């Protein structure tokens, strides 16, 4: 117990509450459910190791996301190296990870599944920013800090992701084509 007393524990209920969102983010990163859970588990272990670095009272979710993003980036770099630069691009790895049952809401099941498929085909850098901004509703500055990239990069990734999704669904839409606003 002495070591635990020296390092204050993380708030377990909050940690538990953050796990569903961690899993979702991990799945967005890896595109694969099993690997996503491995990633969450690894990130949780790191979080406990580094718990001294978490400032109590700050956003635990953002801190956990940052850790998980770093674990993912490191693992990916390692995997790339080990596989002798075999590409790990989203096209090849998103094959089955996105096929989750979606609830019927205002859209049909098919449309939502289709949307998920298209998100899965975005490069991981773009889909990660898209999901963090739109689904997790994080502020752009938070995303920039989390991913250690400039704000301008956040904006350009977000813009490209949105434009690609828009283009995919544009065929069935009466909305006029995008015009760059300057």
């Amino acid at each position, binding site marked *: *117990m002495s*070591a*635990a007393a020296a*390092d204050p*524990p*993380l708030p*377990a*209920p909050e*940690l*538990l509450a953050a*796990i*569903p*969102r961690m*899993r*979702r983010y991990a*799945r967005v990163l890896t595109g694969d*459910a*099993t690997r*996503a*859970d491995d990633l*969450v*588990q690894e990130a*949780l*272990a790191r979080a*406990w*190791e580094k718990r001294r670095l978490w400032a109590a009272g700050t956003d635990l979710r953002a801190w956990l996301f940052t850790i998980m993003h770093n674990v993912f980036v490191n693992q990916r770099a390692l995997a790339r190296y080990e596989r002798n630069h075999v590409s790990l691009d989203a096209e090849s790895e998103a094959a*089955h990870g996105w096929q*989750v*049952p*979606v*609830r019927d809401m*205002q*859209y049909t099941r098919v*449309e*939502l*599944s289709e*949307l*998920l498929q298209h*998100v899965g085909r975005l490069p991981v850098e773009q889909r990660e920013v*898209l*999901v963090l*901004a*739109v*689904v997790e*509703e994080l*502020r*752009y500055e938070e995303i920039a800090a989390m991913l250690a990239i400039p704000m301008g990069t956040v*904006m350009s990734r*977000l813009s490209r992701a*949105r434009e690609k*999704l*828009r283009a995919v*669904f544009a065929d069935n839409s009466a*909305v*006029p084509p*995008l*015009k*760059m*606003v*300057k």
Partner: protein
Amino acid sequence: MNPLPVSDADIHAYVDSQLAPKRMPAVEDALARDPALAARVTELRQQNASLRDAFDPWLDEALPERLVAGAAAPRANRQWMPSWVGMALAAAACLVVGVGLGWFGREISLENDGTPITFTRQAALVHALYASDANRPVEIWAAEEQRLVRWLSRRLGFQVRAPDLNSLGFALVGGRLVAGNENPTALFVYENADKRRLTLQVRKPVNVGHETAFRYAVEDGVGVYYWVEENATYALSGNLDRGQLLAIGRVVYGQLATLEAAPASTAPAATPAPKAPDAMPVPARPPTTAPVQKLS
């Protein structure tokens, strides 16, 4: 006045509700004057809404046990072992438990109610997480017991009941919903005058027809009595000795059986009446011990 022209970044910030207030007039003005821009904003908002609709159900997935365990402090920090040994052991244990527990391999379910390891371990973890929380062990407090029971019954899909353990010195603190491996779990927390806490966890059985007798296990110093009935699985957990826990378990079991027997009169807005009580398989009674006495 002629502020900066509206940029692409302004439009993104606008649809994401994070546009700086001072930019708002310029953007709204541009939207009023430019129908194509307004159409684009509408389209992006629709895209946002469908993305949330597509991704939000992922949050409702049941958590695998290995991740629930990850929310608790690794044992390495409480033990004499160097931390890497503990980590390795924990990882190995998680591998054994976690193999096959993917999102899509649901048919290969490790979470059988008859399996003492997984069920009691999870019950003990949940107990440790919430019973130790001094300020917010529950989501809904006992003052709103009826609302609590209604809510949990709705979420679990059958009528749950909070037994009255006042005769044993344990008052209901409240309850909450907890993610289980397969089915959501209702958690009731009780507390006695010495601030000792007990939890009762209820969930739908994963495998129907696997009734068990009372079983007892100790996980991380938490004693867990559990039993499986046709309609529900129960786990009673607490840092009490086995005899005390057993005595309480008998009271809980007896009360639930009585309440099941008279559903209409005691539960006004009850869900469809459970099967006749005599049809309910009766778990083997625990060995008769001393009569239930007041616990302190």
